[in-house]
């Protein structure tokens, strides 16, 4: 069933915290949006409200972590990464066990417009050593990542959607740090037209694009990159070997996020393959999520078109 990954996170957190007494939650006046309110209702004594003061919240989380707690801080992705210096020193450089959860990522939030859309968080945070970065595509993956995050010793950034996302994983799926997974594979046969790499809210679009291409006789694979740091370089190398091109599809600026990660991997491993990066190139704006994905070239139909575009 389609579910917002922030919702799946809030439910999983409230559940998993029951057996993890060291988990505490810090809020910045958005607990009803980030869904940590579910934890707050269940464990009011382990929940701290900081008000609209994200930097202080992140700093305090570092202190809690240095005393053995597992602090989970959440806000919109844009407001967390707005406190980059605090994250850089208090979470990453100190390598504290702080869990940063950025929700409402990307154009997918719709109407609220540019100022509320985190489109640069991955670019900023991917350059911080010590920080693991995860972005789940659906409910199942969100639950597994949430559990991994709580049990991992070190700072983590979890990037979540406001909007519902379709299930792309079967019940047997097991999240593995640093591993990408194939969510659509054409039947064996000729080399592939393209491999589509997606993450978070765009994975469903990538699957749709690959299916639509198959219906028209074109073969494309869709790969989910839930683990952004560390990143699955081998998945890029493999795709470069059997696909005519790589296409990245992300609800983030094309610089600094998934598209960059794929290009970096391809360059490092000297893969001679064209990479088309689909994603934001400007600040966001108001509109419905569907309208914005269409206008900014993030919809499945744009992704399918990119797989067929003449590259000459």
């Amino acid at each position, binding site marked *: 069933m389609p579910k917002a990954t922030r919702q799946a996170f809030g439910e999983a957190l409230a559940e998993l915290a029951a057996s993890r007494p060291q988990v505490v939650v810090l*809020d910045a*006046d*958005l*607990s*009803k*949006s980030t869904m940590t*309110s579910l934890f707050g209702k269940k464990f009011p004594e382990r929940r701290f*409200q*900081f*008000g*609209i*003061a994200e*930097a*202080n919240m992140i700093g305090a989380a570092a202190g809690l972590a240095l005393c053995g707690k597992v602090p989970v801080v959440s806000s919109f992705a*844009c*407001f967390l990464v*707005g406190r980059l210096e605090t994250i850089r020193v208090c979470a990453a450089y100190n390598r504290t066990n702080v869990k940063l959860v950025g929700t409402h990522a990307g154009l997918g939030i*719709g*109407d*609220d*417009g*540019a*100022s*509320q859309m985190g489109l640069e968080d991955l670019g900023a945070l991917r350059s911080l050593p010590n920080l693991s970065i995860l972005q789940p595509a659906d409910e199942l993956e969100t639950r597994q990542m949430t559990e991994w995050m709580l049990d991992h010793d070190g700072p983590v950034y979890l990037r979540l959607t406001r909007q519902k996302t379709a299930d792309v994983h079967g019940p047997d799926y097991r999240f593995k740090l640093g591993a990408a997974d194939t969510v659509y594979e054409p039947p064996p046969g000729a080399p592939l037209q393209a491999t589509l790499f997606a993450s978070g809210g765009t994975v469903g679009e990538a699957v749709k694009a690959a299916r639509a291409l198959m219906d028209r006789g074109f073969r494309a694979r869709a790969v989910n990159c839930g683990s952004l740091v560390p990143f699955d370089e081998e998945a890029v190398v493999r795709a470069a070997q059997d696909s005519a091109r790589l296409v990245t599809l992300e609800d983030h600026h094309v610089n600094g996020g998934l598209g960059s990660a794929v290009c970096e991997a391809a360059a490092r491993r000297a893969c001679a393959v064209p990479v088309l990066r689909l994603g934001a190139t400007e600040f966001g*704006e*108001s*509109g*419905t999520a569907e*309208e*914005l994905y269409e*206008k900014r070239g993030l919809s499945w139909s744009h992704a399918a078109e990119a797989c067929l575009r003449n590259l000459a």
Partner: protein
Amino acid sequence: MSVDELKTLARGLRVDIVRMIEAAGSGHPGGSLSVVDILAALYTRVLRHRPEEPGWPERDRFLLSKGHACPALYAVLAHCGYFPKEKLSTLRRLDSPLQGHPDRLRLPGVEASTGSLGLGLSIGIGMALAAKLDKKGFHTWCVLGDGEMQEGQVWEAAMAAPQLKLGNLSMIADLNGGQIDGPVAEVMDLEPLSDKLKAFRWDVRVIDGHDFKQILDALEWAAAAKDRPAAILAKTVKGKGVSFMEGVIDWHGKAPNKDEADRAVREIESA
């Protein structure tokens, strides 16, 4: 514009706010309705501006630091003639100049794009400094939310403005007592706010933010400030004018449906 005319205007603006947000299907009625009386008085009685020439260099500058309350700003700007009133119904639509949070590059009359809380007063300091450098007489006004004042940067700005002797900068705090996770006093109390700002060397006046006489007096007082910035602490009601929204946290960021909007408009018009 007389106080009675202002009251009539504010009723119309409240109707605009409710209808815009209803049409958009999302938005922030609570904090728009609490601040609209202040904006109505400021734009029609105090601000020196030219709607037909939004870039007029001598204009007073207005910053809506709590950008989510932009339906109030849009309604006032339309009333002043910055754009045709029909545009109001395009709030939050794709390609509309009326973005979900104010965007200066899309809508003439918006001095600064806002929406991330806590930034406006700092921008105001820059504008006030520029006015001094250029020996210009314009005044800079900045409206903040009380929840917004929990941001650390607001207090960095609050420290700086008196140090820089910015009598040409005024802050107006919309103290409606509500934010998203609950009442401000419970989420992170600001009190004693007046004492805090005085300790930061601001001149402070506390008013009823829905009483036009008090609003106008305070705005004139702040506009006449010399070497110290003035802070107007306006006690307001979140959702003011719509009984079922007044003081109800849930109406911070929720659109009324058709029925609710009709009820709200009837109430506003018969007030």
